[in-house]
């Protein structure tokens, strides 16, 4: 065995634990979804707090309940959902870098709020790439081990830290800046070309929508006031499928919006009102069925400026 590889073993897999990065870019014309982490904000911080390169492979843990055994020393970080996380029996601080020692076990409880936790490790987990990304997309069978979720007894590798470049004091993200996944979420909606044909726009923007049960990384379904388009526009609309992207707000026949997620289909046939900003999506991904959201309009320029700031910040670390 290669001495410079450290190992981590899955003792309990939890609901769904997968290797992820920012996704497979440039293959949507072949029907391949980008995939990658649902909450890129929390995932980016998990890497940044360890000084990792931006796209380092990490674990996306859905609804906690997993356990990992560390065969070697390392430094890790957990961000995302508010959750009790223990190292052996000691509570671990989230959104903070943390040393872990050989033989210790990391245990996730069931999160109080939020859906996804991100577990990063110094220098990232070692993972083969498929089409330039380690993102696991289970339904497409793309990713390490054909995109499958991790199972009990699976081993993960990481590069053992051989230098003393990590600061002795922990890097921590101040808790007052941590997102509150329990709060009502206002989604920034960039109106699309069909927005002008939406009936009762004002009412729509005042509405609270509830997240429905059958929500997953492909899309978030909402329950609430049905959205309708003017009869004139419906008559003129052609029924062809077109490309769709992350955050697209689709309106199927029942008028209940679907917001496309990290593992969205690449083309779709439903009419669309527009697209929520990526940053809004990352917060939305951490909401559970029953939680409330609403929409407010934002210009494409505003959304873009925010997005570029986000990208520049994390690529400069």
């Amino acid at each position: 065995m290669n001495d410079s590889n450290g190992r981590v073993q899955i003792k309990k897999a939890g609901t769904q634990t997968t290797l992820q990065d920012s996704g497979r870019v440039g293959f949507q014309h072949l029907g391949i979804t980008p995939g990658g982490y649902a909450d890129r904000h929390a995932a980016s911080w998990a890497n940044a707090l360890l000084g990792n390169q931006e796209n380092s492979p990490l674990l996306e843990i859905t609804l906690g309940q997993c356990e990992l055994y560390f065969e070697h020393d390392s430094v890790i970080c957990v961000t995302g959902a508010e959750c009790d996380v223990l190292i052996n029996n000691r509570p671990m601080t989230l959104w903070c870098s943390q040393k872990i020692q050989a033989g210790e076990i990391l245990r996730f409880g069931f999160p109080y709020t939020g859906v996804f936790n991100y577990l990063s490790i110094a220098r990232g987990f070692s993972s083969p790439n498929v089409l330039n990304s380690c993102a696991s997309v289970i339904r497409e069978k793309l990713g390490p081990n054909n995109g499958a979720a991790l199972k009990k007894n699976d081993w993960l590798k990481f590069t053992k830290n051989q230098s003393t470049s990590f600061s002795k004091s922990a890097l921590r993200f101040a808790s007052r800046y941590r997102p509150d996944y329990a709060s009502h979420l206002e989604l920034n909606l960039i109106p699309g070309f069909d927005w002008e044909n939406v009936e009762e726009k004002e009412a729509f923007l005042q509405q609270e929508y509830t997240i429905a049960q059958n929500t997953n990384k492909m899309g978030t379904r909402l329950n609430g006031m049905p959205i309708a388009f003017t009869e004139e526009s419906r008559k003129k609309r052609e029924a062809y499928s077109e490309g769709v992207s992350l955050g697209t707000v689709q309106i199927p026949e029942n008028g209940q919006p679907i917001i496309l997620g990290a593992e969205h289909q690449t083309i779709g046939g439903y009419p669309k009102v527009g697209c929520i900003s990526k940053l809004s999506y990352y917060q939305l991904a951490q909401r559970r069925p029953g939680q409330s959201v609403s929409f407010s309009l934002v210009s494409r320029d505003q959304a873009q400026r925010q997005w570029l700031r986000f990208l520049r910040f994390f690529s400069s670390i």
Partner: protein
Amino acid sequence: MLRIHSNTIEESIDTIALLTQYLHTDFNEDFIDAVPAFNTVLIYVNLSHTTPEAFRQNLLYHVAAFSAEAPRLKNPRDIPVTISLPIYYGPELAWDLQSAAGKCGLSGAELIKIHSEQYYHVCAIGFSPGFAYLGFTDPALHLARRSSPRTHVPKGAVAIAENQTAIYPQASPGGWHIIGRCPSTLFEVQESNSTILCVFEVGAKVKFYSVSLEEYIALGGQLDE
């Protein structure tokens, strides 16, 4: 998103396919991905190289020039003009052939003849990796999707629904009527060197031909367990 309007949808598909190629040759650095579908192409602009507004201005300027020059730009590189695919339409594997034919008021043989005698356009690729929407089927074959989709449609299943036909490149859920099976590999990712085989490309033409069970198996076709 770029949307075009032509006299027929087939013309739109051809133009969009050419436009998409043109994007790849002339705007390559400025976008990350371009997804053509029917009469639209969704362009993912590369924000580290340009802004959406600059890209849009640039594109519209060139599209105007492109339209004027369109005849000269036809087939700038080798899109396969026709993809020929073998289909076994036999009852063991064509799960819905009889029921679909019945709904259309045709015999099984008539349905097969109508399905395999015309050319189709590759209109869009999506739903799952390598899944190509092929248009447009003869009106005699138009059928609504199955009232309840199957959780498992086998790899290679040839199917029809509405005014289109398709071949499922890998096993997946699906709601279309299965009328045959194709033994060819339509989509494959080689993990070792990250290369992709995808037989279909938007704008290409497709033609099916009927083969016997022996030929189907000789071509690598699988039987159901």
